């Protein structure tokens, strides 16, 4: 049986890396004494499948991982109680919101997620000036970037990966540096666009303040939804800007 876990990563803990959090999860699952399935072989590893990596320093309202449980013990786990069991075993700022069973035949998180919505603080920008710059980006037919890949310079177009882009307003009073806030939906497939690449595509390039992933999106049967299926316990409203 496979379960999908949705969690938040907010506050100080955002300065940890994807690998750091992966290790925290392995320890938390052991501490919760969940019947996690293991790989075969000489050095068995727990069967845990992480979703898209989140850059060190970025916050998120919607992170996911899939965990395989052994049967029959897995079926007896009370999934609704799991968020409350797991959250205290994880670092402060990592909060488990929901757990649902998923079909093993479903595509992995890394394959299934096609885009993410980001809220990005841009220090030193007024909302008005930023709106004008956003209009320029949206009006562009292509946004060529050059990046190095295996020692070769490859030219690439960012524009198709910028699915939505708008200005939410001024930064909240608690922001470490004042400025304006962008909201962007950026593709993860076929070519993934990172928030830093988006900011670098502006002319002049924008500085990166706090960055928060608010949603990950799966497109299936023409519909766009979040990776927890609609039957999942309701989630707190997300992505209403940086609180």
């Amino acid at each position, binding site marked *: 049986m496979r379960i999908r876990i949705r969690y938040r990563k907010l506050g100080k803990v955002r300065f940890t890396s994807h690998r*750091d959090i992966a290790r925290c999860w392995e320890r*938390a699952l052991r*501490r919760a004494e969940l019947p996690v399935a293991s790989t075969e072989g*000489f050095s*068995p590893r727990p069967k845990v499948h992480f979703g898209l990596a989140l850059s060190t320093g970025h916050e998120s309202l919607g992170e996911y991982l899939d965990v395989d449980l052994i049967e029959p013990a897995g079926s007896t786990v009370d999934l609704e109680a799991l968020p409350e069991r797991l959250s205290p075993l994880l*670092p402060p700022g990592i909060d488990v919101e929901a757990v649902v069973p998923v079909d093993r035949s479903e595509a992995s998180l890394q394959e299934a997620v096609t885009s993410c919505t980001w809220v990005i603080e841009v220090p030193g920008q007024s909302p008005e000036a930023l709106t004008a710059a956003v209009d320029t980006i949206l009006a562009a037919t292509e946004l060529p970037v050059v990046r190095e890949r295996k020692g070769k310079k490859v030219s690439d177009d960012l524009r198709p990966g910028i699915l939505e882009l708008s200005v939410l307003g001024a930064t909240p009073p608690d922001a470490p540096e004042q400025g304006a806030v962008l909201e962007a939906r950026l593709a993860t497939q076929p070519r993934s666009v990172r928030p830093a690449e988006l900011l670098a595509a502006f002319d002049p390039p924008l500085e990166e303040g706090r960055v928060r992933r608010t949603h990950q999106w799966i497109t299936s049967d023409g519909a766009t939804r979040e990776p927890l299926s609609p039957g999942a316990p309701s989630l707190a409203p997300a992505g209403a800007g940086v609180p």
Partner: protein
Amino acid sequence: MWPQLEPLLAKVAKPARYIGLEDGAQRPHHSPEKVAWLLAYPDTYEIGLPNQGLQILYEILNERPDAVAERTYAPWVDLEELLRARGLPLFSLDTHRPASDFDVLGFNLSAELTYTNLLNMVDLAGVPVRAADRRPEHLLVAAGGHCTYNPEPIADFLDFVVLGDGEEIVAEITEVIAAWKASGRTEGSREHVLRELSHISGVYVPSMYECTYSGADLVAVTPRYPDVPERVEKRTVPDLADFPYPKNQLVPITEVVHDRLNVEVFRGCTRGCRFCQAGMITRPVRERPAEQVRTMVAEGLKRTGYDEVALTSLSTADYSGIESLVGDIVQSTDDGPPVSVSLPSLRVDAFGVGIATQLQRARRTGLTFAPEAGTWRMRQVINKLIREQDLYSAVDAAYANGWRRVKLYFLTGLPTETDADTLGIGDLARNCVELGKAHTKSPSVTVSLGGFVPKPFTPFQWFGQNTVEELRRKINLLRDDTRRSHGVNVKWHDPKATQIEGLASRGDRRLGPVIEEVWRRGGTFQEWSEKFDLALWQEAMANHGLDLDWYVHRHRTEDEVLPWDHLSAGLHKDFLWQDWRDALAEVGLPDCRWTPCYDCGACTGYSIEHIVASAVPPAGGSQGTGQDLTSSPVPVTLLGRAPQPATGAAR
């Protein structure tokens, strides 16, 4: 300070090392009547976090109603630069408070090359680096740990030093500082509180002592006042069972060294290896009861979620009943997820490998042994009494049990060392490769060569360290000798760093200005090979008219006053001198746990004794001493009926 730090962390490498949040971390409530300790390790978080000494004190202090403790580590150069550019101070990780909110900045000093980091952290804390320049509003700068058995090179920068085990003494220190705090830390009161601290057994206050020189020679280090002790004795916790710490070992979120559950099974070691400072200064042997070890392992694994536990000590295979302890732990973890148990110090014999085999059921990749020297003659000099046959049986057992790589630790630059001893290392390594061929197609033996640094309170404290050129010549001799030896790889430490470690290890107070100059010229993180800068040290020595050669390479005589003679690790100086003569005469000395007492001083001086659970030497024998130990009288106290020591000495 978090709001000011937050934007900086987005700009530095590995920001997770500055956020705290570890499982086991505390958020203590500060208040004016509590003494606030900022416990510091003068190296990066990755190196410093696992330090068990700091973790033990962190818990003990936070359990007290009159104290709080938080932690700090050396910020890497990128963050340091940002902090200085914005005028921000050193901060605690637990609640991200500035250092100025604390009363004591207490360092653990485990490596001499971190001394310049200590100065840098004191400066970042907003405190004058020289103790003499500090005022009542500045915190007290303290240090403990193995390096403080010769704190003289950094005496100018420390307000007080703690010798020995910290578990009990932190309480006494806290009480004195609490009184100082309550008195309002008025003008002139700093001198008074330091004087009070100097009355605590185990506390050394450098400013209360005067150094006298005659030309280049140190003549005496004497107290300035009659109530300050002429000699400061180390503190020793008589029974580890009273201190089952850490109870809540910190579980870091980001990667650190030794990232596993660590349970200390005993403290002290009486193998008597003459090069080993840790073995000399931590005597006597005090074992933790097996039942407590089992509980600490079981509860620790459950609480932390770690899948690895290390049973730590200076020589864990010597723990009484190690086989049954290991068996119990392996068995108790059989039902749950796989747990690996490791012994960081493996003994060089088949017995040690037998235990390792029992423990490490999976992932048998590499196994490490420390024969330390290449010939039996040399090993008698250093009293590491391993016969060649012991090593071969260990290596053969390792290969037979599925290990493919063997690593051998050696020291070079030892007293009386000849080229035959150096070349003997090559012979041992080649023979080990040959043994491996019976079990695997391409066995590999890595020889790791460290330059020997004589340390205070060891029989080798009188020995003139080898020069950089001599160490380099010996390393090259061995490299040339093994160049065509298939399967043998040689690695070595930088002899230049070894030289400066030697300087700081046995130096006196005159090195203070040198260390300060190296720090002022940007020489931090000298223990990191990419940051080590010999020229800085050479120039600073020259600028202050001091001679590296005199400090590092000169043999000391019996009558010479050593910079640490006014301190005591419990060892009689005549015992050390006799052991030094025995070393030169190539006479080995068996482990005193199972033979009559040599009166080294560590037990008798403090009215305590070795606490071991068994009167019989560990299975596998006493490491090659080849003697019948079972019939001799046993000068040890059996666990469970340890005498209550006269701790009154301290109070």
